[in-house]
């Protein structure tokens, strides 16, 4: 039986004819949690940064710099691009895993976790504002949605970490009743 590759072909294939994603101007809660929106914004960011990076390197080389030095000078864009690619790849992997789950509470909670990952990545990235992918109001919407997601994940926090299935003996007393573990009767 052939195992499915970790990276699906979809991630490696760039369709040059696919249109540049267009983001809605109003980001409602349901939009922000929509996997299509999340995928679009991650793809848009990556593609735009790639274009900027290749353009900057070409420009520097055109001025006579070596390819190696041009890459070094563009390290800021290179790092942003590397991060954008990685985050997009991770989002896609999560979505693939989520799609395999039957409808139900596990899938719903995983959706919350996935949205938290996607939105916190966006919230922390200044390139979204710098390059105009999102407006200031959009960024405010993302920030508020992150706060809302924190509240919704809160009742699931203990169950989610219990799901890691780590045996008690692997965890230190601080993961349980730290106060009890350190009282005089135990010392």
């Amino acid at each position, binding site marked *: 039986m052939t195992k499915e590759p970790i990276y699906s072909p979809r991630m490696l294939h760039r369709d040059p004819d696919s249109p540049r994603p267009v983001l809605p101007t109003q980001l409602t809660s349901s939009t922000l949690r929509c996997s299509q929106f999340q995928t679009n914004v991650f793809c848009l960011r990556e593609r735009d940064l790639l274009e900027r990076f290749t353009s900057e390197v070409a420009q520097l080389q055109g001025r006579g710099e070596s390819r190696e030095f041009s890459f*070094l*000078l563009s*390290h*800021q864009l290179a*790092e942003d691009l590397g991060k954008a690619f990685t985050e997009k790849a991770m989002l896609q992997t999560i979505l693939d895993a989520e799609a395999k789950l039957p409808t139900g509470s596990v899938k719903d909670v995983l959706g919350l976790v996935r949205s938290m990952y996607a939105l916190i990545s966006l919230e*922390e*990235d*200044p390139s*979204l*504002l*710098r*390059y*105009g992918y999102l407006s*200031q109001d959009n*960024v*405010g919407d993302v*920030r508020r949605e992150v*706060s809302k997601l924190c509240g919704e994940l809160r009742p699931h926090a203990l169950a989610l970490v219990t799901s890691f299935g780590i045996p008690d003996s692997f965890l230190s007393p601080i993961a349980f009743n730290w*106060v*009890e573990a*350190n*009282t*005089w*009767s135990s*010392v």
Partner: protein
Amino acid sequence: MERVDHLADERNKAEFNVDDMKIVWAGSRHAFDVSNRMSRLVANDPVFEKSKRAVMSRKELFKNTLRKSVHAWKLINELRLSDEEGLKLRSFMDQPGFLDLHWGMFVPAIKGQGTEQQQQKWLSLATKMQIIGCYAQTELGHGSNVQGLETTATFDPKTDQFIIHSPTQTSSKWWPGGLGKVSTHAVIYARLITNGKDHGVHGFIVQLRSLDDHSPLPGITVGDIGMKFGNGAYNSMDNGFLMFDHFRIPRDQMLMRLSKVTREGKYVASDVPRQLVYGTMVYVRQSIVSNASTALARAVCIATRYSAVRRQFGSHDGGIETQVINYKTQQNRLFPLLASAYAFRFVGEWLKWLYTDVTKRLEASDFATLPEAHACTAGLKSMTTSATSDGIEECRKLCGGHGYLWCSGLPELFAVYVPACTYEGDNVVLQLQVARFLMKTVSQLGSGKAPSGTTAYMGRAKHLLQCSSGVRNARDWLNPGMVLEAFEARALRMAVTCANNLSKFENQEQGFSELLADLVEAATAHCQLIVVSKFIAKVEGDIEGKGVKKQLKNLCYIYALYLLHKHLGDFLSTNSVTPEQASLANQQLRSLYSQVRPNAVALVDAFDYTDQYLGSVLGRYDGNVYPKLFEEALKDPLNDSVVPDGYREYIRPLIKQRFRSAKL
């Protein structure tokens, strides 16, 4: 063997006078002289040797600490060192021990909270070290929330005593340094209960151990809390636990400067204003901020020197490889930390001024600036210790794989430093205090009351809320007015946004808890503005020495523009700068890195650290790294024998496939 300086070429590139920069770093010629003499005194004394710390057992390390501490005390007396010199000597000893808490917390607590008579009695014992004291406040169940402490001190009018008791498991004292094994006495913080009423938390002087044989007094249970993070580091300190079983002390051992209990058990607040306690708070936080600059400077010194020594990639036609300090990525990670070390140094200096100012006002019963001083010092403690702990770990990474070796000095420096983010106030909790102060200040705008001190910029709210940056080219980012305005606009707009969002909640406290994350960010922005403005004030002032001011300006604008780059989202979302202006800032930042590059090694030489104090093979002054790494490796106990202990019992049977059956 010839002593060659492998970094001489780097030092020759310096465009400034290092000796003059040493004076700037130290703060004054006098401070440099004290620091230089004490560091050499320690470095040349074999008792203070520390290169074997990581391979000592806990007991050996602790005994070694006792030896060093007493040796330091003897030197202080024999050489008749001043208090300032004694403090410096202990800092260069560089090993956490009971002296730090005796002199740093126990003695100041008595000075600040004891009556004249109590000070006369107890300080005379403490200053001669006829007793050794610690500061027992934190409990198993309460650290940040001091008001929730559970230990009780109940007055007994029949015997004129207080009964100290630990009513629950969570009331056990937990963490106080020096308590575990050394201290004979402690200032205990407990709830004062007299005539059936709880008057809150107060300090009590309690004897813990016999002065004859050091055994714990009856009713006292005391010991060490266990190993802590890192090799060496705070494992040389006996952080302790302490429980009381109805332990009795005389009434006059309650620290009664601020309030007292009469023989009849009546609680009387004295006429000494309790705001005086804030003076000590400012002093402690100032020293924490100064320590942040020192710890960061040590890490940066090591990483900078090693980055000049280490070569990787970049070879052309079989030529020599490139020094990693020449890579823009290394500069982008390292030079902002170098700038931060100087920035925190100067804000630490400014806090010394603030301390004298607050003290003067307190003596004149002027409490008007206290809220701002409290918020300012809380925020700076939080911001500088967080940045420093992150910075030390970043310096370790900048050294590549070799940074993971204990002998690089960085793993232990990180482990010994990170508690600063928690003690004297959890960093996030402190930033929330700043946020509350900012919200209050914003709410008073428009009331005609002009904000002062570090919030004075909020008085220009009308302008700052609508202005846009005038930066047009990269060099404009070297204009102090332009930089300050960008930081002021960002900080103010973030604070005002929070205040506006808060006003939408019917319940203020609910709104506060909903917006905690935003409030912390607004507080951080305010603190960064303070540091930037103090750095700018410093470099725009008079500074002696060839080329010195120029280098400090470069570092100042690296610090500011790096923060702008790192927190670009804030600046863009508040419209404090445009994307184009941000690109210009990045251009200027790159230009500044190129200017600092030839001066980097000299800028860390200005810290004037001995190799003994640095304790780092990678950061050796002479740059002779790789031969010394090999020497250090050979000293490891595992190399005491060619064939390791355990080979015959475990490895040889495996190789020879000659297991005995395991008996279950």
